């Protein structure tokens, strides 16, 4: 079997200590094969966001390991974690997180610059063309629509050719038509560029664009669904909500 692009083993994250401690993740085991598009879903408080911040090297887990493309990044210090983050992981956020004073082209090239690498103009322009914004390269984010800004963010996530792209509710701030086109774009990057996308979402429509859905409940894995449809995912989510309400 090939090395997964992202793997977490026994991932545990506890906030606070003593009587007030809250455990967001309970020994979570998940693997994401290279070249796949996986949605991570779960009710509020299921640990989706904590999973993403730990897997994305934004914070260190309390216990367990995070392995990216075969390299264990769990015990790295803050500077090395930052380096991993900008070279091995691409991020797409709900609120785009573009720098307001950089043009679309400069935003896409930013991770390369931060890594001290020469920004390859051709590669940046190629990515902008791929996300359908070749003619908007010199615009500032404030001059772009929400959907266009998210496309720039996706191009930025792709620019370092990362092992995995982590998307946090990437369509949460978009209307449904724009959302569909952004999801289709993510789908294309997986199919045509061989990217690996892990997307946290609560939207069954968004999840239906993925190859598979992983469900989380109370910080544990609670099942997996291959080739998800919107209806099946919505049904499973309703079921999980009932489970949580009953417990």
């Amino acid at each position: 079997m090939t090395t997964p692009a992202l793997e977490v083993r026994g991932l545990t994250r506890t906030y606070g200590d003593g009587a007030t401690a809250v455990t967001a993740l309970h020994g979570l085991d998940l693997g994401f094969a290279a070249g796949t598009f996986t949605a991570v879903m779960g009710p509020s408080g299921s640990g989706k966001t904590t999973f993403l911040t730990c897997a994305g090297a934004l914070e260190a887990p309390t216990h367990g390991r995070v392995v990216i493309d075969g390299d264990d990044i769990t015990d790295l210090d803050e500077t090395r974690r930052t380096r991993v983050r900008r070279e091995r992981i691409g991020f797409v956020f709900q609120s785009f997180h573009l720098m307001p004073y950089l043009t679309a082209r400069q935003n896409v090239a930013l991770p390369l610059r931060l890594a001290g690498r020469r920004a390859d103009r051709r590669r940046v322009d190629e990515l902008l063309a791929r996300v359908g914004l070749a003619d908007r390269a010199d615009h500032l984010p404030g001059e772009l629509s929400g959907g266009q800004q998210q496309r720039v963010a996706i191009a930025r996530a792709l620019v370092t050719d990362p092992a995995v792209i982590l998307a946090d509710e990437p369509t949460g701030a978009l209307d449904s038509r724009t959302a569909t086109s952004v999801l289709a774009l993510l789908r294309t990057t997986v199919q045509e560029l061989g990217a690996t996308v892990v997307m946290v979402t609560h939207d069954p429509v968004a999840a239906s664009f993925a190859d598979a859905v992983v469900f989380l409940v109370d910080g544990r894995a609670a099942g997996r669904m291959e080739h998800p449809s919107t209806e099946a995912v919505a049904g499973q989510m309703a079921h999980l909500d009932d489970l949580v309400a009953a417990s």
Partner: protein
Amino acid sequence: MTGLALRSLRHRPAAATATFVAVLLGTALIGTFATFVESALHLHGEDRTSLIVMGAVVGGWGALIVLYSVASTAGITATQRTAETSLLRVVGATPRQVRRLIGREVLVVSLLAAAGGSAVAAVAGRVLFGALRDGGMVSDGARFGGGPASVAAAAGLVVLTSCLAAWIAGLRATRPSAVAALRAAEIEPRGMHWWRAVVGGLLIAYGVGAAVVTLTVTRHSADPYDAMSTCGAASIYAGVGMAVLAPWLLRRFSAPVAALVGRTASGHLAAHNAARRSHLLAGVLAPVIVLTSGAIGTLMLVGIDNRTMHDPAQRADGRLINMLNYVVTGMISLFAAIVVVNAFAAVVAHRRTELRRLRLVGATRAQVRSSVVAEAGIVAAVGIVLGTLGSLTTVVPFAVVRHEGLVPDGQLWLPPAVAAAVVLLTLVSARASVQRATRELAG
């Protein structure tokens, strides 16, 4: 609204501190010299004239400077909250309510600060008056006559200004529609109002004009201090004029300076931020220009006078004038420094989410810090060059009039010393603000 204002103040003591310090020091300064004027009303002869001149010159300049710094601080504090006030409007606050919220916050802070400043002024006025008597600048028989009236008038003036500034900032924050304001929080307002260009241009023209008048008219005057009175304040006018044009100047001049900052990622970010969002950093550039121009201009003016004035009778006149020059320069420097520190804190606080964003995209904490410090470097460099140019409107004409030639005979160490102090001030205040902001961005 008052309840909301108080709660909002408790939520952000740092922003209120800036206004508090500016109003406190402002009231203390203007109040102190106001007591001299009040004392003068009970005196006669030369004492009366000296005290009124002192009170009028220092009080007048002081009022201008303090009002500027209070206005800019209160304005910055209100403007940096555009995103939040737009949010309030989206959930249903009327523009009037938002203006009232901002106004009441500033009123509460200013009243407290003015009360403290009045107490300082009452004591400082008495002490300084004693010092003047001991130094022989007023006669031994003169009695201190400053009371609550002068101090209260000074306090009232400062409070009124800060409220006016907050009201204007509130108007600006509520003019566009709520959603437009929310979006605009991220976007650079393009260009400046035409009146701003006119005011800046006129002030610079006035400074240059005063220099020309000194060289052509007052140099032939019988009283050697006539030349000083025409060119003495020229550098300050020119500096303030450039400060008014600061956003435009920063856009123009940041590119060549940015080329010097290097091709590192931090330098790249700093250069683009300085050029594309010059309205933010202009708040820092403005006081840097005034500080540099005023300090170099006035201190070299006094130096030239001390070297070239040998007539003992006129030297006595010169002592009072030069003491006033020092006091005015000291005030300008002090308040400009306060505004620099405040403005940086405000700019960085305003950009907190954006700096966090940089971290998420993969910048190390060191890269975020050095990009903000590089911005400070760009501002300091542009400010020093422009400020030094402005100071020439005072230094060159006065040096020529007093027969030292285009370049004064002494004190050439002064401009580099002022420049070093300005660089230190900007870099340290930038570093301190970003340190505070990035500490909580760990992760």
